[in-house]
């Protein structure tokens, strides 16, 4: 097990874990559209399957948000 930070909150995960698996584990809505940063570096979507996380990593999920004018 390892402790990582997801959107500012600590989370225990079983290693090894990829970004794709973490997205699934966190029940991210519309995972095909979330942007992901690991330790403040963006990871390309094509690399979600092959990027693994380690103890202490900080992951941010960024979501599309529209709204305003209508």
């Amino acid at each position, binding site marked *: 097990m390892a402790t990582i930070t997801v*959107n*500012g909150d600590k989370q225990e995960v079983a290693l090894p874990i990829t970004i794709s698996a973490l997205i699934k584990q966190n029940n991210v809505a*519309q995972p*095909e*559209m979330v*942007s992901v*940063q690991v330790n*403040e*570096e*963006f990871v*390309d979507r094509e690399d979600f399957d092959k990027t693994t996380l380690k103890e202490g990593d900080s992951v*941010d999920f*960024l*979501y*599309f*948000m*529209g*709204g*305003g*004018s*209508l």
Partner: protein
Amino acid sequence: MFDFTEEELNRYSRHILLKDVGVEGQEKIREAKVLVIGAGGLGAPVAMYLAAAGVGTIGIVDGDVVDLSNLQRQIIHTTPDVGRPKVESAKETMTSINPNVKVVTYQDFLRADNVLDIVRDYDFVVDGTDNFPVKFLINDACVMAGKPFSHGGILRFEGQTFTYVPGHACYRCMFKTPPPANAVPTCSQAGVLGAIAGMLGTIQAAETLKYITGVGELLTDKLLTFNAKTMDFRKINVRRRDNCPLCGQNPTVTELIDYEQGVCDLASHKN
């Protein structure tokens, strides 16, 4: 020297009292030209606060007319305005708040063929639009033209905003391409708590005034998000992406694009 009238000195006295603003800052505000894109949920508080603050020239872009369902959050419009062009109704409110400001209206929607011409005349741009094709268009045009802007988005009980200044992270650094048409709900489909628009819009107005006066630290390279259910606010550090398709080292987006406008199913929500 500054040639403020008695009326202006009185009207802006609470700004002038601020050590960080003062008469000098108020003069910068009066000289500033700000473009507000969208006279809706976000544009309403932005335009009202900027008018109240005495921003000398405020452009406002919207091709739509006021709908009854807008009034729950678009506080620049009132019940008798239903059916009127939003820019007209907005201008009326702004000039009644502060007749000293010049309001320039653009009763049109932004497209690849008009955005640069409109943006060109302004010092700062505020994105108060509701759909991704235009959000990307504003980002791309502002990055290409070297114009700073404030991005804003709201959905249900949440909001997010950042401020772009040339050389810092742009919207495409965070989100490379627009979501597929109809994949992401806009507030016309998903709903939004009206006051959320005010919470986010006033942050955008404050960022605009900070940019103009040079006070404080802007939300550059930071995405501010909040959830009003818990009132948790979070600032996420974001870094300019080397492979950003727009501002990266080998850009693939080199001209403005009119993306397909499919995300917004208006028809089902008109009356």
